[in-house]
């Protein structure tokens, strides 16, 4: 099993080091970091050096690393590392190097209970509470930090302004009496993968959805959640011509072993405290596109190239998207690029990378923007090749209060006398949105 756990910052400094089995040297963080530096490309998340296996995840510019000599299960290691990072986040309120440094006593207390002799023991936030005595040291966050840190989903870098309390899950001893701690936050995320061929055909249109919860509920009340429409699970339903939402497959957090009851369309579960992902689903053949992109390329002469991109938002005018970043790779032979856009938007040409980046700060539904770019290219380069090197255009955006599948949480009832405060949000975000040209 795992011999050591350590956390390094992006410079390779050790910020946490926990010895579990005393069978390896103390110099493993050095060896690990040296190996990362020696390879330029993305290093595979586990590797073996001189008989020692290093298994790591990278989160928020920090490395969470296990070392071991034995033949362990990598999935267990990665799940556990991810869980540990979540627990640290739950207890310190934010997963940053600073928060870890300020709370290292607390973190050592946690690590002592989470694993024993390198074997996982208990990882549930409420069980761990009983064993933690150090109060968390919350860091005064300036505005910019809080934008990163109040994010529920740690994997993404963008955010939707929200009120989620940035506070630790647990205050030991007497302090914990405030009434407002009886809250539950629910985020329904949909990450979309869209791939369009140059002729406009849809190659992929997939939705990876997840319901992420953060529970500050007192006790362990039973929660039932109902959806607005019938979820049919299994791609065979598509062939059978069912209406409603057809979900190819889904999985559930261990607190909801029953899944969704077919007849009632309700999911019943006992949420653990802290952050967790209740439900994940994937839809492989969505028919809806939130944005339409239309590209037109012309080559008036051997040294000129004109690109026109038309972007139309395909959702209700009441909804608006946050920052949209549109990246257009240009041919390697580009010498210069002039661009104009409608409504005084901003498009920036990055000469070094040969990329045109168009940023739209905010866009309402049913709106349209146009970008016109005229390039000067090296006249000796081939036209076919220039065409080929233009694109694919990729979009990066998030749309709050909106989801593509139209799955919505219709009702959420929580057992108990005092009804807790419930926060429900919908966010659509791109995983990959690529239009080939």
């Amino acid at each position: 099993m795992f011999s050591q756990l350590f956390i390094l910052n992006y410079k390779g400094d050790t910020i946490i080091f926990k010895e579990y089995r005393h069978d390896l040297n103390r110099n493993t963080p050095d060896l690990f970091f040296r190996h990362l530096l020696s390879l330029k490309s993305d290093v595979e998340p586990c590797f073996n050096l001189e008989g020692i296996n290093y298994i790591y995840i990278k989160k928020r510019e920090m490395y969470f690393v296990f070392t071991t000599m034995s033949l362990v299960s990598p999935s267990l290691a990665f799940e556990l590392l991810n869980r540990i990072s979540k627990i640290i986040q739950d207890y310190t309120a934010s997963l940053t190097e600073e928060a870890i440094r300020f709370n290292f006593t607390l973190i050592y207390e946690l690590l002592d209970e989470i694993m024993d002799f390198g074997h996982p023991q208990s990882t549930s936030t409420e069980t761990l509470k009983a064993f933690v005595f150090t109060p968390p040291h919350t860091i005064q966050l300036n505005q910019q930090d809080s934008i990163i840190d109040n994010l529920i989903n740690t994997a993404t870098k963008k955010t939707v302004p929200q009120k989620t309390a940035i506070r630790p899950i647990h205050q030991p001893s007497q302090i914990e009496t405030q009434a407002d701690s009886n809250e539950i936050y629910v985020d329904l995320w949909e990450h979309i993968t869209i791939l369009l061929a140059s002729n406009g055909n849809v190659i992929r249109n997939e939705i990876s959805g997840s319901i992420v919860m953060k529970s500050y509920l007192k006790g362990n009340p039973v929660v039932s959640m109902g959806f607005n429409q019938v979820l049919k699970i299994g791609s065979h339903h598509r062939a059978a011509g069912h209406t409603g939402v057809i979900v190819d497959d889904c999985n559930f957090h261990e607190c909801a072993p029953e899944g969704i009851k077919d007849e009632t369309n309700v999911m019943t579960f006992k949420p653990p405290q802290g952050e967790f992902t209740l439900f994940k689903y994937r839809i492989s053949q969505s028919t809806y596109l939130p944005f339409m992109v239309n590209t037109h390329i012309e080559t008036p002469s051997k040294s000129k190239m004109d690109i026109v991109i038309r972007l139309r938002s395909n959702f209700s005018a009441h909804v608006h998207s946050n920052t949209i970043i549109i990246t257009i790779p240009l041919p390697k032979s580009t010498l210069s690029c002039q661009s104009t856009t409608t409504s005084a938007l901003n498009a920036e040409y990055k000469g070094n990378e040969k990329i045109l980046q168009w940023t739209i700060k905010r866009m309402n539904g049913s709106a349209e923007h146009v970008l016109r770019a005229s390039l000067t290219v090296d006249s000796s380069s081939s036209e076919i090749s220039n065409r080929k090197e233009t694109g694919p255009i990729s979009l990066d955006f998030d749309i709050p209060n909106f989801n593509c599948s139209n799955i919505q949480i219709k009702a959420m009832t929580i057992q108990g006398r005092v009804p807790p405060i419930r926060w429900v949000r919908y966010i659509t975000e791109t995983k990959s949105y690529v239009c080939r040209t």
Partner: protein
Amino acid sequence: MGSRQQPQQQQQQQDHSYFSEIKKGEVSELRTLLKNASNERDTEKIKSTLQRVVYYMTMGIDVSPLFPDIIMVVNTTDVVVKKLVYLYLCNYAVSGSSNDSLLLLVINTLSRDCLDPNPMIRGLALRSLCSLNSMTTFDYSFRGVLKGLGDASAYVRKTAIMGLAKLYNISPVDARKETFEEHMPKIYGMMMDQDGQVIVNAILTLDEISPNWEVSPSLVNHLLAKYKQVNEWGQTTIINTLTRFKLISEDQIFDFLNLFDDRLKQSNSALVLSIIKLFLQITENEPNIHEQVYERLKDPLITLMDNTDSNEIQFTILSHIHLLMSRSPDLFKHDFKYFYCRTKDPFYIKNLKIKILRELISETNAKDIVEELSEYVFEGDIQFIKQPIEAISFIVAKIESLSSTVLDIYTTFLSSNLEIVISYTVSALKDFLRFYPNQADQVLPLVVEHLVHVNLESDAIEALLWMFGEFPFSEQQIPYIIEQFFDSKFNDQPSNIKIQLLIAVIRIYLAKKKENGENRSGEIYPIMMMILEECSSINCSPDLRDQFLFYYRSLIYDLEKTSSIINTKLNNNNNINNNSTSTLFVEDEILEIRDKIFEEFNTLSIVYGKHSTSFIKNPLTLLEKQKIIKEQLLISPTKTGTPPTNNNNNNNSNNNISPKMESQQQQLLQLVDVSHQLDSSTNNLISLFTLEKAAEIDTGQFQEMWMSLEEGHAMSIQLNQMPEIDRIESVLTTEGIQCLAYGSVDGVTKLYYHAKQIDDGPWFLVEIIIDETSHLMTLGFKSTDIQRLHSKFVTKFVSTLSNAISTN
């Protein structure tokens, strides 16, 4: 390992001393602080000082000199102080260190804490007591553990049982049996505990102490009953234990399947993968259910893979999908779009997805996949150009109907402005022509047309030269391109390109069209002479010289024979070459090899793509592996070698070398004068590689060596018919390659050979597997000297073998 780490350790120690010099003031300051605080009995002060100590400890600064002072504050009721002290102690208490004896001072406190009314304190004290990595406290810890096993609190019991594993690990190997044997029944007893975590820890402890313990049917029932009370990590432990259960009945198989089926919908990939392993294992002998299991696990795996925000988990699942495809190639065929790369995917994921995509192909999806792959080339990720181009050539080798589509794609690649794209495309076209040689007349003019201003990578130049040599009539300009290349760039080239050039010109020189006898010897002759002369220079690399001498002597000896050896395709007597029915590249990974790691499902072996024996240094598993190899190895040799038969036939019978060429051969001879004086020296060079006449090795040694070595080289050869084993053996024996064992089982003939270079040189081990129905011969080579294996032994072995197999 030891010798390499030595300097680093020294280095570190220096670092430490450097640090502690700076921090010397700091350490003594901490000491004063601790003293004052403990005199004042100010817990908060003690706590904050301890926190600083632990902070330095984390950063790797040596604060062990504070050991005596820390021990002084251990006597406290504050839990956080206790925890900090214990953390410190567990880090610095190491057997044999100067602090070791001081530990006895702590024992009292720890032992007292083990009796504290608060179970949490008892557990904490017990856990820390056992984590002291020191024999000094062993007796105390052991007593504490035995007492803790009977504690009323489950938290203490689970800590105590794990403590047993810790103590087992630090106790000397020869004392283990004596100390622990009498307590084994207790561990089994703990598995029947009411508390889930105690059960799980008892299993884990038993796994550590006696890894091959037997899982009894009653335990299985108990575990199934307790399964739901255990957390997800404990569940994986239970599943892993069930996987080891041997006495499973047919009814139980269905029970297991029904019980865990809905658990496949869990979001914890560790749990899902261990359930999959269980399912695959218990249904292994039930082909029908086994198939259903594959169907069943497909969707959960895709969901776990695609809907995760952890690249690392995605990578693990992809590795397992890749492995599963070796057993069930069609399983993911319809879901190929999930394996399309996203621009943001890290390189290791893109790479793996491509590997999966190229194996997913079928007649229906291949076109989509190839078009998708071709898009990646221009997506701007400069690291990620080679893989898609290679994958395309791999796919088109399997799907013939795609050849024109692919040729169009390659044409666009060639007309791109990117030299790197062109280079990889040229290499890919070489592979393309190996499968579609009749397209050569179309391909080569295309390549030549786009080469005008391009500086190719060396691999691409090699590929190009190979194509020229293989298809000398496909493009008019070949001799002139070679001449130009020779004139302008020859001297800057690495020797592998020079060798390829040498071979190419000789092949062109000897080539002759079957139908009309057309040849290009006249065109190429002058340039060939120049190259030969250049290669005969004493300054050439030994490899080049080697090759030169071989070809040169062959040319002088007999043009006809040389031609028949070198231009096998044109002369069409290819026994050992890929013939048209073959669909495998020699260098392709063979599924069988991937299949070998199947038993290690859900371990690091799968993500590394190799068997644990090659990276885990653990004597215990070594024994198990030996058993497996023993099963693979067949009966020891029963045959004694028959005397070698000479196969001196076909003396120049039909000589159709033109008189003109003969005169050129004469001119060639004049070169001898140049090279004559080299002969004696080169003789040495050549004879450097000689095998011992009869190297001795027994089966045990062979097994041991075979297991400890990494796969050196693997290839497969499609034979036309079953070879005569006796003949192979006798021919190889004359070369000093000895047969260790051979035999035939389940339609597969296996042969094991070994050889050793003279003067205490490296060993070479060979495994030959011949499928008796398809006549596919698979060769696996291993050696203690991989380089020599590649450069010398494999060539020698294969040439000797081909000699033995060609029957006429």
